[in-house]
């Protein structure tokens, strides 16, 4: 909360001294980049989303009002909006950057790898493995046959010695449960909200 208070002060100061905004940027840029990277699994898109989010925040910093959420709440409000727009349309807004006259930057190969590191594939893999192990034997088997091996439901049913309806129900329940455990791990793989 203390840091948030500082952020608010910095943003208000940046109304007249844009340099103050640089400090806000330094505080939040990397976590925001990780936020986008873990949701899009696309380093290029994540970088651009960070750029647009900060451009919008900068352009509208005079309209910033502390409504109890602090600067972080405000910043992530913009970020969520950008993300859902990206999931919905597949495109990243560039209006704020254009208005500010900011150049388009490419993500260098080095950056690309570093951003991937932010996603922390190891953690993602671990989370998926853990979530998978939480499923029941039947669900795990059904998911392996249907999702990983891509077999039709009739074959899945034969292998599991059950009706096709039951096979479908197991796969669907298993996927739902998997999604829930991944959510709990802080991995938001489902696109959109």
């Amino acid at each position: 909360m203390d840091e948030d208070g500082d952020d608010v002060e910095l943003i208000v100061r940046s109304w007249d001294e844009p340099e103050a905004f640089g400090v806000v940027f330094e505080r939040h840029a990397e976590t925001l980049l990780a936020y986008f990277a873990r949701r899009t699994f696309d380093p290029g898109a994540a970088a651009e989303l960070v750029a647009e989010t900060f451009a919008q925040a900068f352009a509208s910093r005079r309209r910033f009002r502390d409504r109890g959420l602090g600067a972080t709440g405000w910043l992530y409000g913009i970020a969520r909006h950008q993300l859902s727009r990206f999931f919905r349309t597949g495109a990243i807004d560039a209006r704020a950057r254009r208005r500010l006259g900011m150049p388009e930057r490419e993500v260098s190969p080095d950056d690309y790898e570093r951003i991937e590191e932010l996603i922390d594939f190891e953690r993602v893999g671990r989370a998926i493995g853990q979530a998978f192990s939480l499923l029941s034997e039947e669900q795990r088997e059904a998911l392996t046959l249907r999702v990983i091996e891509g077999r039709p439901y009739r074959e899945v049913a034969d292998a599991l010695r059950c009706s096709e309806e039951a096979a479908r129900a197991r796969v669907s329940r298993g996927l739902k449960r998997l999604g829930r455990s991944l959510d709990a791990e802080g991995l938001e793989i489902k696109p959109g909200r």
Partner: protein
Amino acid sequence: MDGTIGYLEALREDLLDAGMREGRRDRRGTWRHGLHDRFSARSLVAVAAAITLLAAGSVGWFVTRGDDTGRRLALMPGEAGATGATGATGPAGTAVPATADEQGVSEQFGHVLDTDAGVTVGLPSEVSRVIRTAELGLIIPRGSFDDRFAEAVDVAETSGGFVATSTTRERSGGVTMRVPAARFNEALASLRELGEVDVQTVEGRDVTAEYVDLQARLRIAEARRAVLLALMDQARSIQQTIRVQNALDDTQLRIEELQGQENLLDDRTSLATIRLRMREEGVEPTEVETPSLPNALERAVAGFVGMIAAIVIGIGYVIPFLLIALVAWFVVVRVRRRRGAV
């Protein structure tokens, strides 16, 4: 942040550069930028709409102030109702509708009813009938109210009329008098001499057509009554008698109604109405109407309608200028953007 990601470093520099550019632009057009940043587009639009409405309202008010359009528009429904009501009393050339009873009677006594066609409805050679009303507001010297009031009552009596109503306050008051139409102008002239004329309106409503129409309908009804009376003598059965009697009753009722209307018109046209108001110098004119709830409501509605009318008229005046301003603004923005892009 330890600068490991080059993209973020570059982004930070870009943002600060944008801030620098903004600072330079700010010095040129602070108010515009500040305006844009401090208020959302929605509130700007709302404010613009409010200003436009206000401007339209005041323009409309100025424009209509002279001719009282607002008030006239506001009063229209009431007036329409009033004329509609008087119109209903005498629609020109209305044939007296035959009731089922009368039709049955005429079938049975067709040969006698032929005489009905022979009744001529001659237009009476009447002089024109006019309802005269006058409003007179007088300002009289201080301390003279009681005398002048008595003199006004005298005028009513000497011209063969009478005082219908009167109200007196301490140093002001009013008399409504009825005087014979022939002596209307004479009475009005003597009243004018009582003081300095403040307001005077004289109105004459020509009701000759209404009057002629009434008389024609009265004649037709009377002729019908004569025919029905003749039929009454020829009726041979009780049934026939009853049917003729019913038709006769209806006709009699109609005749009485028409006579009532004729009497009213007679009274209105033979006696003119003069509403006189007098006040001593320095006394504020008091509203005659007392503020009652229906009255207040009526005035509020009239005011509201008048206001809307003023706004509509005002918008008509403002729209062309608004369009020109819009085009100009558009051009300016275009030019600026092009210059900014280079």
